[in-house]
């Protein structure tokens, strides 16, 4: 039996009257429209709700509303997080409706999404919220029936006292339960007693999505709302010099055109305050199309930037981020990366004596891998609603890190946090991009200036060319084999513009006696940020392609080769900082091996395998490809995953499928390139995205069954599939693919 103290994060379990964020929430018609209705066959909307804690309220008829604390970006946490609460509360899922919680950092912990951590980090508080509410209901019943609380049991929303035969629905006890003191300690369910966790439940917003209901920030409407767009410099390394709006200003429907400054020069930025262009021109008008026309007619002059830098905080420390002047080119980037890789680098980890081992090796293999900048390309372009008046700021839209952005805005407009209300809409994709919510600040500044409610929308071109990309990377690997084909030394030297992709303590660190990990980076004025599985999204593919080549040189089966190394990491690990659990890593490879044994490779079908650990989870994958006249067709991807307990299996499979398709798409086709500072791909005619015919024909996702608390799932299946793809391409074509994108704009393999 697990008992858990409620003291941690106790405020969220208290009845919170401050829940509505200063009461402004209730005025939002948009949110009233996307509020859920009861879909329960037997229960309609109740007359009255009793709020038991910040996470849940219960109607007099037994209908339960569960608040989903974190923003929803497609990971389906708006379904799976409430499922965890419902499990411990012990209610029938069909009598649950789900609402997006308001931003309330007092009541909820970590109200943001990123790093595949929502479920992992929310697990304990979600369970405690449900369990403490269940206790309070039992206590209310015990009081009413005058029996010891220990004798009151629950079953799917009904309280029972077996000895006397008394029973009551949760709804009947809800008002009394709300007055019961929050228990100091509550009992959590045993895994074997789970009835909701581990069963597939449909997306709570599914029906709304397929009928086109307004759910997204870009759909936001408000009486008297104006539309705003921005014009940003045409190239990285340029800034605003002069505006000629004489023509644009007179165009129909245009209200105002003016410059805005996103952050002030001396502002010490928070970690997520990345922003490419400080000075923008805002165009405000009555409708999107009119504003788009004026944006085209607007004449702006730009000038080159000088070298500069800014400070940003990272945890408790501060770092200085340099912004070099200059108009950068992709070709120069390649040359610079090659030069850096052969210059002085940072040693991040060294085990044994790698130099000697390489000198004495029977065989040395060395390969270099690279990948381009990538644009996030969320299908919903960046946007935000803002209404800023003298004494309050109301905002609504899609973002990943509201609790950080709120502080940034407070600082920028000089308004205390309690006067700022940020509402979270559904995100039309995030993948890291919506962690950097400079557009929220921009929307607020524009609203402040025009003194009206405003919705700022980025055009697709703005979205794709205004920065915050996945960095461009390069990694060189060396492996030394002895005369018995044993891997004796491993060396990785990796870097990027402007950040390194290296994880020095990841596999095969710990499995090789002589190991060296080094990195480097090159400053740039091109901005970058988290992109689905940061760093891993490159380094996994590179490392897993390289290990495939090493296994081949050693004459070993790729899965057995990895398992041998993991055996070493388990029984006699090298070093102490290895950041993976070798047995779980081996576990996914073994599960994959078993699944593949049941589906052996067919003639003309070529299979590549890969495995990786990131975001606390493990994934092994095999990708089967056929190639006809140079045209690759991905027949199947088979995955084995260990992410601990799976809350909502079918939704987890859906996300796994998505990560696999996305990973293949990015590696095969994705690239943002630069010419004289200009981002060359500015829309989907030039930026190639994976489309239906290019997706795998079939995807299997198998989960390792265990009792480990849930770990990440949104990202871990993305990185390894790139390695599996590269290895399958090699088997199909006889040619190794070292540079992403593997196909790019080409239609066939060269």
């Amino acid at each position, binding site marked *: 039996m697990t008992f858990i103290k409620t003291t941690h994060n106790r405020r969220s379990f208290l009845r919170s009257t401050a829940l509505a964020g200063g009461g402004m929430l209730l005025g939002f018609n948009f949110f009233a429209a996307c509020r859920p209705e009861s879909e329960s066959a037997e229960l309609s909307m109740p007359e009255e709700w009793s709020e038991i804690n910040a996470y849940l309220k219960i109607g007099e008829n037994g209908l339960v509303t569960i608040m989903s604390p974190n923003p929803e970006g497609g990971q389906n946490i708006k379904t799976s997080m409430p499922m965890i609460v419902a499990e411990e509360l012990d209610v029938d899922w069909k009598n649950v409706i789900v609402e997006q919680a308001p931003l309330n950092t007092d009541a909820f912990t970590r109200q943001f999404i990123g790093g595949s951590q929502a479920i992992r980090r929310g697990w304990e508080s979600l369970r405690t919220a449900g369990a403490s509410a269940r206790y309070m209901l039992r206590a209310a019943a015990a009081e009413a029936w005058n029996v010891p609380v220990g004798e009151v049991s629950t079953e799917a929303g009904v309280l029972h006292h077996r000895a006397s035969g008394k029973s009551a629905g949760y709804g009947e006890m809800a008002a009394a339960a709300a007055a019961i003191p929050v228990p100091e300690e509550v009992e959590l369910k045993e895994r074997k007693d789970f009835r909701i966790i581990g069963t597939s439940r449909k997306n709570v917003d599914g029906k709304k999505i397929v009928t086109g209901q307004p759910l997204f920030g870009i759909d936001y409407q408000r009486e008297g709302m104006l539309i705003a767009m921005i014009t940003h410099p045409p190239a990285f390394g340029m800034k605003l010099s002069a505006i000629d709006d004489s023509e644009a200003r007179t165009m129909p429907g245009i209200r105002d055109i003016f410059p805005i400054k996103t952050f002030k020069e001396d502002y010490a930025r928070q970690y997520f305050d990345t922003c490419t262009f400080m000075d923008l021109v805002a165009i405000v008008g009555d409708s999107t199309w009119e504003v788009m026309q004026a944006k085209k007619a607007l004449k702006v002059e730009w000038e080159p930037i000088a070298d500069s830098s800014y400070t940003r905080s990272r945890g408790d420390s501060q770092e200085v981020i340099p912004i070099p002047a200059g108009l950068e080119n992709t070709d120069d980037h390649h040359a610079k990366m090659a030069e850096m890789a052969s210059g002085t680098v940072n040693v991040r980890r060294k085990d044994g004596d790698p130099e000697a081992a390489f000198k004495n090796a029977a065989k040395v293999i060395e390969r270099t891998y690279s990948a381009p900048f990538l644009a996030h390309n969320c299908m919903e372009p960046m946007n935000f609603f803002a209404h800023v008046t003298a004494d309050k700021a109301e905002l609504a839209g899609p973002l990943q890190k509201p609790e950080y952005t709120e502080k940034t805005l407070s600082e920028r407009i000089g308004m205390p946090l309690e006067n700022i209300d940020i509402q979270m809409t559904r995100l039309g*994709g995030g993948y890291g991009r919506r962690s950097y919510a400079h557009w929220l600040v921009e929307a607020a500044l524009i609203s402040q200036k025009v003194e009206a409610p405003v919705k700022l929308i980025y055009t697709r071109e703005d979205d794709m060319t205004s920065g915050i990309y996945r960095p461009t990377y390069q990694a060189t690997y060396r492996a030394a084999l002895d005369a018995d084909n044993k891997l004796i030394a491993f060396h990785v030297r990796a870097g990027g513009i402007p950040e390194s992709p290296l994880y020095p303590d990841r596999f095969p660190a710990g499995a090789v006696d002589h190991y060296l990990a080094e990195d480097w980076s090159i400053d740039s004025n091109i901005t970058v940020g988290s992109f689905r599985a940061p760093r891993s999204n490159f380094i996994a593919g590179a490392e897993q392609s390289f290990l495939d080549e090493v296994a081949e040189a050693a004459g070993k089966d790729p899965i057995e080769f990895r398992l041998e190394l993991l055996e070493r990491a388990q029984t006699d690990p090298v070093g102490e900082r290895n950041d993976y659990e070798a047995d779980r890593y081996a576990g996914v490879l073994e599960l994959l091996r078993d699944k593949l044994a049941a589906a052996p490779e067919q003639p003309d079908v070529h299979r590549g395998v890969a495995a990786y650990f990131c975001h606390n989870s493990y994934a092994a994958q095999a990708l089967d490809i056929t190639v006809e006249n140079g045209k690759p067709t991905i027949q199947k991807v088979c995955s084995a995953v260990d992410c601990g307990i799976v809350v909502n299996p079918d939704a987890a499979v859906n996300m796994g*499928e998505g990560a696999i398709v996305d990973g293949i798409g990015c590696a095969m086709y994705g690239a943002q390139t630069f010419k004289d500072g200009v981002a060359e791909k500015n*829309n989907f005619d030039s930026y190639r995205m994976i489309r*239906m015919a290019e997706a795998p024909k079939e995807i299997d996702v198998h989960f390792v069954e265990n009792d480990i608390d849930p770990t990440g799932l949104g990202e871990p299946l993305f990185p390894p599939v790139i390695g599996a793809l590269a290895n399958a391409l090699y088997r199909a074509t006889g040619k190794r693919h070292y540079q992403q994108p593997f196909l790019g704009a080409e239609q066939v393999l060269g």
Partner: protein
Amino acid sequence: MANFNLNINGKKLQVDVDPTTPMLWVLRDHLNLVGTKYGCGIAQCGACTIHLDGAAMRSCQLPVSAVGEQAITTIEGLSENGDHPVQKAWVEHDVPQCGYCQAGQIMSAAALLKNNADPSDAEIDAAMNGNICRCGTYLRIKAAIKTAANG
């Protein structure tokens, strides 16, 4: 500015807009039908797909002045209660992740099935090629189309 009489989801509606305004923005900004989504504005992503006299059409490339008498159907008007076979199949397969592209996907799929009750894989690929999903839900979309076709 000019007046246009439009036939949308079986209703007669009037708007007073610039004649070059694409239907996408007429729907979203002037008629509060925001189910039709903006993704690219250049007919490359399919998020804005509507039906024009039953055929799939990218509304970002359709000026309001070109519509005339033709009947427009948007995601909001595809069915009365969200029970079009394609919508039902979408829920059954729990297709959406972020969901942003899905209205366009559903409109393309519904137009395909109208002309071809039992499309092959290759025909589905061809009809859906113009609809991008960054979340990567393509396999479920295809499975849902097959369910709707056989339903």
